């Protein structure tokens, strides 16, 4: 179900390199998008309302085509415009699209949001079990003994995405508290680019442990109990800000952004919106306050320092 972001905690040198890389890609993509818009937007606008584009991180919900269809239908109904859902393989790609304004809004993770806080503006935050909060889980094989999360030292570990808060940053921060970094702590680690894939990797034995979105794991427990049944929670993190919906700061007051924001915040008020929320197992969306992600920002800082 939902994409969550993840943010900092990379070594500073590497991070800078990555940022410069992202910037150049962003600029490049923005340029390309601008050219495309110039070439195509004018005749389209004359006939139909301009389409809205909404980016989704490839964590949970992208695997459910029925959900995507229903979400698109709901947004189109509420905004009275065509809506294009944009999905990509990595968080990084979606983050780049939203930061560069290539999509009108995107459901990103708290980690990228913290990283690009200056360039992004919060539109809404999902409410799960009454709060806009979720946890990150460290999971292991169901038959694995031991309650101390430190037993995973020397494992092959499955991360979700290097830009995921729950699927990377929280574990990296946990290790950082112990003065360790993933590369030294784990024998080997890999990214599955999807929280569901982390559960699959641990359930199959490909990885002995994994870092996964707690919200995703709980929803999977309902929908795929056979898969989650082969794993168990070794450690649950503090409650953290739920992955938010954000837009480029420059388009925060734009008409299109407003339409999307209203649609999201009013989702629980219509039956089609409630059916989307039912599929997402969410209570609704709420206006976000920036301080919600401060704890994530602290983890980013901790990881950065340790590295």
């Amino acid at each position, binding site marked *: 179900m939902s994409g969550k972001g993840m943010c900092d905690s990379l070594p500073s040198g590497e991070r800078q390199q990555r940022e410069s890389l992202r910037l150049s890609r962003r600029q490049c993509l923005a340029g390309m998008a601008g050219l495309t818009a110039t070439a195509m937007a004018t005749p389209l606008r004359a006939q139909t309302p301009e389409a809205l584009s909404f980016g989704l991180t490839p964590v949970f919900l992208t695997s459910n085509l029925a959900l995507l269809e229903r979400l698109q239908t709901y947004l189109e109904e509420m905004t009275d415009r065509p809506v294009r859902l944009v999905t990509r393989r990595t968080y990084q790609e979606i983050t780049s699209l939203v930061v560069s304004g290539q999509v009108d809004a995107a459901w990103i993770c708290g980690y990228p949001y913290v990283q690009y806080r200056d360039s992004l503006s919060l539109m809404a935050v999902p409410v799960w079990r009454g709060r806009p909060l979720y946890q990150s889980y460290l999971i292991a094989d169901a038959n694995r003994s031991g309650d101390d999360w430190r037993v995973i030292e020397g494992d*092959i570990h499955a991360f979700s995405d290097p830009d995921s808060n729950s699927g990377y940053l929280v574990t990296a921060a946990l290790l950082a508290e112990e003065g360790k970094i993933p590369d030294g702590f784990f024998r080997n680690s890999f990214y599955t680019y999807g929280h569901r894939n982390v559960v699959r990797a641990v359930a*199959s034995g490909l990885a002995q442990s994994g870092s996964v979105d707690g919200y995703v794991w709980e929803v999977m427990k309902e929908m795929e109990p056979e898969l989650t049944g082969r794993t168990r929670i070794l450690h649950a993190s503090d409650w953290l800000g739920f992955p938010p919906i954000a837009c480029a700061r420059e388009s925060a007051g734009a008409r299109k952004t407003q339409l999307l924001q209203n649609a999201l915040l009013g989702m629980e008020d219509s039956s089609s919106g409630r059916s989307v929320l039912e599929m997402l197992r969410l209570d609704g969306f709420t206006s976000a306050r920036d301080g919600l992600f401060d704890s994530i920002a602290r983890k980013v800082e901790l990881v950065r320092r340790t590295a």
Partner: protein
Amino acid sequence: MKRALATIRAWPITVKIPLLVAVLMVVVSAVISERVLSRLGDTQSRHLQELGNAYLDGLSSSLMPAVLRNDVWEVYDTIDRARGRYRGLEPVDTIVTDPEGGVLAASDPRRFPTGSSLSEGYLGEFPASGELRADDGQKRAFLQRDLVYQDRRIGTAYATFNTQSLLAERREVFLTLLATNTVITFALALLGYLAISRMVRPLRILSEHLHQGAAGNVQPITDTQTAAGSETQHLFKAYNDMASAMREREALAHRLAEEKRLASLGRLASGMAHEINNPLGGLFNSLDTLKRHGDTPSVRNTSIDLLERGLVGIRDVVRAALVNYRTGGEARPLQPVDMEDLQVLIKPELTHRSLALTWSSDIDSELPVNAGAVRQILLNLLLNACAASPPGSVVALATRTSENALTLTIDDSGPGLPQEARRFLTSEDERQDTPPEAGARLGLWLVRRLGREIQAEFSVTESELGGTRISLKIPYSDREEQRHVA
């Protein structure tokens, strides 16, 4: 082995032919089944090789970028998603290793953990040639493929497939073949049995008639089912011709026997006439004496006495002849009086040839033997003995009774019975039962024939009288027969 072959040879043809058909069918079925299963196995192997190649080829192209990046998850995800997408193929394990042989990812990471090395034994299962190797014992097939990128081997993909369904298919084909061939074999064997039974039916009929004929009941074959002009009909016709010839010969034999009996009767009749004639002169003299001197009591009594004795003698002769030649009489037990009759009957021949008869009989009661046959046999043997003995010599007859048989012995003083005649009398050969040519040894033939009827055993030895001794031992009839006879 020889005994077994001999036993098989003794089996009826109606069993041997169907059995042969069954054995041939089993051999043919075995050969065909072996070929079919062999071809099926080849086809399955080829099919499996093609499917395996398609699987690994498809997988390789998807794996290549992930292997290049050492992306454990992508490799696993690719393998995991490919599972079950190839119809007719059941991959058990798929393993991808890096160029050093370390496992990158496997379909079953618990058995083949990432970073581990495959054992030599396991690697040995995969032919280096890239050919698929099927192991029926393990119910697995093994195939490996190098992942080559820009002429460099960047890894290897190993796949094992479950061949259980193929083996099951082969087993199913085998069972189908077995069942079909068994049904066909039994059907052909049954058909063979029915066909052969029908084909040998004429032979069986002929065999039954031949057996009946051997037992003395020669009957023509009256078969209406045989097709006209067939070999069987020719065979039956030949048999029927033979049967009618035999029946004619049998009738001839009966006629000859009758004639012989009548001939004996003729000889005896002349003797009897003589026997009757002899006292007739005395009787007429007595009558004449009575006519003339009947008044004298002493003469009358003497004459009447003479007449009575003469008539009694004639009566005895006539009675004996009547008993001996009474036709259509049933078999009855031998009585002492029968022996006395024989003495009367042979007496004219003795007198005619000037022979003496030594008679020794211990028969003092009824005996369970056929009286008619015994009388015929003895009369013929005595007549033969008389004919063989020189005038003035002795002919002897002795009887001896025991618990279960009557033994009769006839001695003569003749030159002895010819060897050929001895053999004829004592031979067990049934062919000797046919009547002799041109009436030769007709008397002996009649004796032999009657002797066989009453199961008498003949023996011919030298007699103390210088001639021949013929003995015959006649077993008593059983109680049932005795009662019937009585």
